[in-house]
């Protein structure tokens, strides 16, 4: 909790107080100026727009990335556990190992590839990148969750005449909410907070909020406004927190209760 406390209290201090007082003391009087300033007045590059426009860039990028990667991960997990084919485990291992590729390594070849695909500097390109490097994780989550779901359920549905996708949508997805929450939390956080890809594969005005935040916070030879920095950081983190609170509700128990005996 402590770091957050420090951040919140700092963000509520005035610039003058910051310079004089101890960094981790509580503010003497509350001032929300820093928040307003960070939201739509602060300089982000040459434009004094605040974080607001970049915020929406991020939303536009994050939502499809999270949905696509979670969905594909669920589908992969399902295929790899309930419809095993020879080599399924090997394949899974290969996909999994992909999660260890350092992103710094990816940067250069990815730029070239995006350039070739004509996706350089577009939101679509960024979505592609995030989906690709999220897949290993979402697949991992779902695969490991689905291994604990009784095969008999799939068998019963097959006998009932449900096809591959019908079983997936009607049986498996409805009982996957906890892991879906995990996957969404992970993907959302990773993508929302990503800086490296966002900076490298977006251009100027379409940059995600982290790039803006970084621009706002990071200065080499300029003057630091810690209160604004902290406020901006908290603003940038708010959507993630909202996702946690909303998604957390679906951490429910007993989704497979009563289905089989054994």
């Amino acid at each position, binding site marked *: 909790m402590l770091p957050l406390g420090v951040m919140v209290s700092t963000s509520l201090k005035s610039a003058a107080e910051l310079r004089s007082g101890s960094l981790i003391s509580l503010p003497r009087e509350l001032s929300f100026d820093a928040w307003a300033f960070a939201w739509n007045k602060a300089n982000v590059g040459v434009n004094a727009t605040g974080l607001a426009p970049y915020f929406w860039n991020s939303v536009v990028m994050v939502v499809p990335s999270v949905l696509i990667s979670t969905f594909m991960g669920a589908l992969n997990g399902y295929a790899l556990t309930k419809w095993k084919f020879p080599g399924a485990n090997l394949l899974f291992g290969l996909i999994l190992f992909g999660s260890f590729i350092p992103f710094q390594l990816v940067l250069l070849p990815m730029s070239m590839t995006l350039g070739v695909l004509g996706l350089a500097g577009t939101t679509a390109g960024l979505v592609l990148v995030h989906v690709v490097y999220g897949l290993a994780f979402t697949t991992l989550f779902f695969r490991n969750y689905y291994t604990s779901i009784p095969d*008999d359920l799939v*068998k019963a*549905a*097959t*006998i009932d*005449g449900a096809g591959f996708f019908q079983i997936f949508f009607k049986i498996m997805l409805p*009982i996957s909410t906890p892991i879906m929450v995990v996957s969404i939390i992970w993907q959302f956080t990773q993508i929302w907070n990503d800086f490296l890809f966002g900076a490298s594969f977006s251009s100027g005005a379409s940059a995600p909020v982290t790039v803006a935040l970084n621009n706002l916070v990071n200065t080499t030879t300029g003057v630091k406004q810690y209160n604004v920095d902290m406020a901006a950081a908290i603003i940038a983190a708010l959507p993630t927190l909202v996702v946690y609170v909303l998604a957390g509700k679906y951490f429910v128990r007993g989704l497979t209760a*009563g*289905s*089989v005996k054994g």
Partner: protein
Amino acid sequence: MATLTIKNVQKRYGNVSVLKGIDLELTDGEFLVLLGPSGCGKSTLLNMIAGLDTITDGSIQIDGRIINDVHPKDRDIAMVFQSYALYPNMNVARNIAFGLEMRGVDKPGREVAVKKVAALLQMEHLLDRKPAQLSGGQRQRVAMGRALVRDPKVFLFDEPLSNLDAKLRVDMRTEIKKLHQRLGTTIVYVTHDQIEAMTLATRIAIMKEGVVQQFAPPQEVYEQPANMYVAGFIGSPAMNFIPAQVVSEADRVGVRITGAQGSSVLPLPAPSAAVLNKVGQEVILGVRPETIARYQHGTNLPPNFARFSAQVSVTEPTGADTLTYLALGGRDAIARVPPKEAPTAGEVAEFTVDMARACLFDPKTEQRVG
């Protein structure tokens, strides 16, 4: 309605051989009951008929067409799983309707069908519950409903009534019988309940360790068991096995049994040639508990009845009958006698046995003789 042919079907898990070459041929509309001890491979066989498990070797045909590689959903089979396998996320009504939904039946059609099945299974009041809110028997009924609601080529039932009370079970048994008579669907049915087996089956297959021991109509299985295993497996309490020797005395052939009370010869009415061949050799005499009765003094015994006296060790009342344990040929044998005829424990009483319903087995091969 379909014929079902199972040819030399084998199944191995790793190096555990579970089915060792099953051959069964069902004509259209047959009702096959699979009987066998726990773990003998009944569920495995059903799974393979349904296409839910790979066949290690052999082939399965429906209506003459090999379906080894046909997808389960295209085999048009309905199945009740031993483990129920209910969809935990759906309520009872949807669990039952799901198969219809997948087959494109419209909503009103499904509702009518679900209502009908629910009434049949006496669970109209449970339609809105999720499986987790049901009792064991109720879950089993949902599993049953899921199969019954459809009209498939073949029904597979894996112990569908094991968790129901006697009354409901009788009702359900009757319903299944009616269903079978009405639709004529081919049915494969696993049960441990012998009454179910005897009353429902057109033929019974008795399995042991992945091998079919006998495949015949119920009465034949009961009265002419192929071997000691089948004889012992069918009937409760089980058939009594008593070591004996085939003897030929004067013009009569009989079996001599020796016990604490000395030895006595029980005559064999109408012995077959095979039995006559065994004269002088050891055999195992098989006697069903209900063929042993208390001798009523002064009654005239028909020729196929033999009389003997034995000491009673224990009596066990079960309501309708009293199980009476008596020493016969050096073994403990059980007689099922009406409570009013029941002797008291310790008493030496006289009994009769209906030798026309007795069986003889070869002690080595355990196969029935004659």
